[in-house]
């Protein structure tokens, strides 16, 4: 059994490779040249003793260097995951790239599993209950979401392939201890609040968030590799936006530097107000607000679209599933952010 992991040097790809250490792996990485490939090989050497092959999903035949006869499982983790990704890049890498993975999968005679790492937000503008089923296109708040939905459809359209679509939550820390190793919209927003650069809260405080650790998510992915094919929603147990903010501020307020600055909790605002703020901020000369908001703004609209993700299939397929305490994870991640990342002079 040989597992090909795309995006193997990415945040999750690397951790999935480590979790499958000891198994037969092929690690596919994007690289511009031999020097980058060498660097990526060196960085993956301590993760797994496995061949590292160059695979750029934008190439016409990205898997030219991979022998399809060997491959029994594919974990497709490669993607451009920025919420502000352009339509063109999202189409080329996340959608057309997935189609190329699918073409390659068709050539793998012994293929047992093609697992796409997707996102809970492939649900787009839906509100209310979201099932572990295929979604219609009812619109998306950014090109990233759209492209992940389109990638799902690209694979789910082929019933002859052993496809699993695993919709992932937002990862905010390594594990329950809270170490942060990858920044996304959550961390950028927390930094803005901690440093007083933002006092508006985009979203409805009652909107549930699905926040998880990498450890939980990787456990889910590895468990689902052995489960029946189909769609799974890896939802660890939600925390509302308001509770997440209150938790974060309770942690911030323990910090003497933050306390001295007496920063207020953010005021919930409507989508138009947040759009106005983000638009005006584009003209603030070179400050930290603009780039941080750029990562948050394309996602902010989701915070007005409350969703409840069902997890019946996940729980049935993964006996090890345990609801996670998302508020405790927020607290742990914020503690880590203060200690290791956020530095504001107290004078």
């Amino acid at each position, binding site marked *: 059994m040989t597992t090909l992991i795309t995006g193997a040097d990415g945040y999750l790809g690397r951790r999935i490779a480590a979790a499958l250490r000891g198994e037969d792996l092929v690690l596919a990485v994007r690289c511009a040249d031999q020097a980058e490939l060498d660097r990526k090989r060196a960085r993956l050497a301590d993760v797994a003793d496995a061949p590292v092959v160059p695979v750029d999903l934008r190439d016409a035949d990205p898997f030219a260097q991979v022998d399809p006869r060997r491959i029994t499982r594919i974990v497709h983790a490669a993607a451009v995951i920025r919420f502000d990704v352009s339509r063109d890049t999202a189409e080329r890498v996340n959608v057309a790239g997935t189609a190329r993975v699918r073409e390659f999968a068709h050539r793998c005679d012994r293929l047992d599993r093609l697992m796409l790492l997707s996102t809970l937000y492939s649900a787009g503008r839906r509100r209310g209950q979201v099932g572990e089923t295929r979604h219609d296109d009812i619109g998306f708040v950014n090109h990233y979401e759209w492209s992940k939905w389109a990638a799902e459809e690209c694979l789910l359209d082929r019933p002859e392939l052993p496809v699993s679509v695993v919709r992932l939550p937002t990862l905010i820390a390594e594990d329950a201890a809270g170490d942060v190793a990858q920044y996304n919209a959550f961390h950028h927003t927390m930094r803005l609040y901690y440093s*007083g650069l933002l*006092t508006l809260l985009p979203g409805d405080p009652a909107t549930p968030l699905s926040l998880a650790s990498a450890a939980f998510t990787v456990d889910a992915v590895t468990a689902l590799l052995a489960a029946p094919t189909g769609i799974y929603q890896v939802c660890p147990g939600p925390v509302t936006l308001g509770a997440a903010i209150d938790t974060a501020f309770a942690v911030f307020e323990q910090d003497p530097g933050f306390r001295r*600055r007496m920063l207020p909790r953010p*005021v919930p605002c409507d989508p138009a107000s947040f759009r106005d703020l983000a638009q*005006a901020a584009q003209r*603030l*000369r070179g400050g930290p*607000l603009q780039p941080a908001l750029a990562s948050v703004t394309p996602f902010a609209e989701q915070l007005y679209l409350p969703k409840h993700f069902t997890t019946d299939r996940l729980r049935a397929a993964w006996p090890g599933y345990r609801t996670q305490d998302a508020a405790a994870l927020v607290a742990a991640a914020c503690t880590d952010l203060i200690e290791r990342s956020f530095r504001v002079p107290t004078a």
Partner: protein
Amino acid sequence: MDGLYIGSFAHALGARRRHLRESAAAGLLQSAPEDLEAAGFRWHHVCEPGGTAYELAHAAVAEIAAGGGLTDIDAIVYATCLPGETGAGPVRDVKDLMDFPAGRLQAEFGLSRAIVVGLHQQACTGAIGALRLAGALLTTEPAWRRVLCVTADRFPEGAWYEQAYNLISDGAAACVVGRDPDVCRLLTVHQITNGGLGRAGDDETVGTYFAYTHRLVREAAARAGLTPADLDWVVTQNTHEKAWQILARLLDVDHARIWAPTLADVGHVISADAFVNLSALLGSGQARPGQRIALPMAGFGLNWQCAVLEVAR
């Protein structure tokens, strides 16, 4: 603040009206001119070389005097952000560092019975702080009738005419708070200070603006027994026009009731622009007796202050 009125509004601006593109070309702005234009700014007013903040204050008070509003003044409260420039070189006699613009106004206008109070740590909110002090003085001095409130600032030559992404004008405003019926009743004044943000940079100032201004207006309205939605007018400082589109929604105030018509012509006059806008509202005839007006201001320090007035005539 029972039984207090406010009127005799006057202001004076730097003599030279200049387009912000000209100031940008002269290196007097930090932001790109198109960015300030996108915020709604166009023109600003700067003093001629050698012109002083005191001259601006004098001009505003002279206008009140000309209208006969300078009678029975018991106190002068003078607010400024920039209380006197210190001369170059070592100082032997520290009184050279002292400046007494309120005292000079007293002498120039013959306000012999007035005492003077200076206010200089409230940045762009000082004019509202002056109203609060005036109210407090009239409350503790039952025999006093009228307090002259003045605010004046002039940027030093060579300084950027931009603060926290706002285009600045040199200018002054003045008014009188007293016991006799006047243009408006002064219902209340509210202030919030966060000294922890005393050294806030421009981005923090902008970042905290929304939560604090939201709180300020709500709390100020509540002190007058109102909600923000009860306010008939919110007369603001001249700042990015998007800021009050956002705040109007947050406060549930119709944006048509946000009043800052001089943004493009005058810019941000430190503590005076909300009074320039208030004069424009009162002059427009749109404010009717009984209507309630909030005058919120934000300033470095960081300070936020808001007065609530009721149109009396």
